[in-house]
């Protein structure tokens, strides 16, 4: 297992390099332009100069190499300097600058992380926590009222897009009942109980929307997988031992059913970091999702490239984690 992990980690490096190249090529090919959002009153010559000042007049490979240098050398060195206080070189390394804001991409990402983790991360966590029991119970009591309601809610929850649920919630809870704000305040600092309450209030709506969506998805997989295992003979053995029903469910059956669940969850975790574009937009959470979408729309290639690449790293990492977990969950799966 250790060897396998190590091998996979080593293999991840060329994989990621290839991915980064393909992303870069893709972004370059895409018919977006950083001056596209400027007013039409700005004349073409000026646009041309703006493009040149962004380095867009350089050949593709040079730009790619430059990004590589900035991402793999300059940014880590910069981080090191910041953490240790050392001065490495003359400190005039070019960082990856976003084209739209002209500020270091890494800083932008760091700035967006808190709200993304609060809202998207929390909702994912909640979804995992809620969906597993729901899935387990619906499978155990297949076609009971609970299961039927669960199925109904989760399928509706999954099939009604967040742009709709979000608006409905805002109309009900912000306009009508006035319980929760409809705009997320990213400057809000949690310092005391009152501010914590406010934070909870402003997170409530987006978290509900996202949790509903994620829960639906995971719960369906838990349920299906549990159903496959519930009637196996080893469950009978466990019952014969007098094991408590909930332990049978949660330990014996659930663990045997976890492989698809682990896969789905591992696929979902990186998407926390890509944010929830529509939900963030509706509630103005302005997390990583909104950062990415504005960057894509504004053809902010350094920002998109960096975000996407970090995302790719997470995908590779979490899929690796899932693969390792398979081996731990099911000893019959061997990678040697």
């Amino acid at each position, binding site marked *: 297992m250790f060897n396998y992990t190590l091998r996979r980690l080593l293999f991840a490096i060329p994989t990621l390099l290839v991915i980064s190249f393909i992303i870069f090529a893709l972004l370059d090919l895409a018919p977006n332009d950083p001056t596209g959002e400027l*007013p039409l*009153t700005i004349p073409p010559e000026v646009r041309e100069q703006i493009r040149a000042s962004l380095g867009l007049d350089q050949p593709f490979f040079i730009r790619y190499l430059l990004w590589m240098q900035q991402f793999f050398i300059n940014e880590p060195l910069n981080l090191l300097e910041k953490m240790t206080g050392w001065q490495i070189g003359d400190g005039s390394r070019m960082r990856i600058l976003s084209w*739209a804001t002209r500020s270091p991409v890494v800083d932008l990402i760091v*700035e967006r992380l808190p709200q993304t983790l609060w809202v998207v991360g929390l909702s994912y966590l909640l979804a995992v926590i809620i969906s597993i029991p729901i899935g387990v119970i619906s499978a155990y009591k297949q076609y009971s009222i609970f299961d039927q309601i669960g199925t109904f809610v989760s399928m509706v929850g999954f099939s009604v897009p967040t742009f709709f649920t979000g608006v409905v919630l805002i109309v009900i809870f912000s*306009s009508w009942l006035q319980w929760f704000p*409809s*705009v997320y305040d990213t400057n809000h600092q949690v310092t005391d109980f009152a501010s914590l309450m406010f934070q909870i209030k402003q997170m409530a709506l987006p978290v509900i929307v996202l949790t509903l969506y994620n829960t639906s998805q995971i719960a369906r997989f838990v349920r299906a997988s549990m159903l496959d295992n519930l009637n196996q003979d080893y469950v009978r053995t466990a019952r014969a031992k007098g094991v408590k029903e909930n332990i049978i469910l949660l330990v014996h059956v659930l663990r045997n059913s976890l492989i698809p669940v682990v896969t789905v969850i591992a696929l979902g975790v990186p998407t926390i970091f890509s944010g929830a574009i529509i939900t963030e937009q509706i509630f103005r959470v*302005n997390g990583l999702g*909104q950062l990415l979408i504005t960057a894509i729309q504004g053809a902010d290639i350094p920002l998109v490239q960096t975000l996407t690449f970090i995302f790719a790293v997470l995908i590779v990492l979490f899929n690796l984690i899932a693969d390792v977990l398979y081996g731990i969950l099911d000893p019959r799966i061997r990678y040697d």
Partner: protein
Amino acid sequence: ERATDGDLKILFWQAVSTLNPYLSGGTKEIYSSSLTIEPLARYDQTGTLTPWLVTEIPTVDNGGVAKDMTSITWKLKPGVKWSDGTPFTAEDVIFTWQYCTAPDGGCAQKAQYEGVKSVEALDPTTVKVTFTEPKYYPYSAFVGAQSPIIQKAQFKDCVGAKAPGCTSANFGPIGTGPFVVKEFKPNDVVTYVANPNYRDAAKPAFASVTLKGGGDAPSAARAVLETGEFDYAWNMQVEPEVLATMIAKGKGKIETAFGTQVERINLNWFNPDPALGDKRSTKEAGPHPALKDPAVRKALSMAIDREVIDEVGYGEAGKPTCNIVPAPDIYISTTNDWCLKQDIDGANKLLDEAGWKKGSDGIRAKDGVKLSFLYQTSTNSVRQGTQALVKDWWQQIGVASELRNVAASVFFGGDPASPDTFQKFYADVEMYTNNFDGTDPEKYLAEWLCDKIPSPANGWQGQNIPRYCNPDYDKIVAELAKTGDLAKRAELAKKANDMLTAEGAHIPLIHRGQPSAISNTLAGVNMNAWDSELWNAADWSRKK
């Protein structure tokens, strides 16, 4: 009294990406930075130039503008201080010019300084701008929200290629305006506090401003009009009936300022047939087989009911128009107002007379050329609504259309590799809005010159999107550039404007305003389409 009215909450659904308008020419950046940095003079809500950091507007009469129109001299208001307490001087004005015109800087407002030969300080409070050739409309540099003055001390190490690296300066320009940037989260939120050194000790009334970004227009409207969480929201492009229900809550209102924006349908004078490959929509492709017929162009315009488009998509925020220069008042022409009235029968008759016969499918054709058009625009729900309406009307006159919408970032992106940009115009007709800065249409009207036709030769960069070419028109525009007299200028401009509509370079649809949602608790807002909407934020206050 200063800083007594608490926090002013503004919502820009397109988030602000930087506070240096020279590095990003977006409207949102210009507006948001206008709270801190100011030009020498700006336009008020009527489009009249008013002195801002100067004592008066220089004219030929008061001697501020040279007789030969080659220079203009500004007298700075004495005693103006930057928000850090240092005095505002002519050096800063000169530096601003240097900053924007430095090579490799990628300054987005370079056009404002076009034709400026030099800027010099006659004394610490007098600035003289010299032009390379006579400039009959000299109020461009340092005028309007597009060219505010930045502080030399702050930006002196940020000239040229170094400009983008000065993040802290770009994110918090020191200015002379009523507010000072406290914190800026790019593409998210800006917080300002009242400028302690603001020249009017009683202003601003608000202690701080929070300018939040992100989301979409309807929800922004909701936040002001329905939930009352915000005081002001910009650019409320929302279906009128949706706005109406929100306004009914009684928390706020919509105010619209009309500038020069016109939503129009451009007609392609060249042939965009995909079979022509790279030649399509260029001169080599030849004239458009159907649209070359003036009758067709006119009929297309006659079939449209602009009132309905306005009612469905714009409401208070738009007026039907037949002009491409819809404002200021002196330029408004009424020659083509026949187009304001829909005339389906007239259009049908016109086409019948021109020999376009309806086929079995109800589509007109002549000599094997069908009146079937690819109609493209950017993705936007109001535009899609308009498309649907227009398609319906055109159908009634036997014209078929295939609708297409393209993501705005691609459509306006100008990427020469993309077939979907509005410049390439690989379609028969396309719809979007354009306008001109300030109040003078000279530069704008010059866009329809023959040599401004986009083509591979100029990298598709020309602005004559309809590919209209008429030597008479070129002559009128050339004359306009040489005319100093305002009345004369207006006459020439109207003539040019009428020509464009009459000949069918495009079909003007709606004179669009800038609607903003304003909370009922907010006082002092004076909607301005000629400058930043936040131009007089110093006067805003909370209703007691």
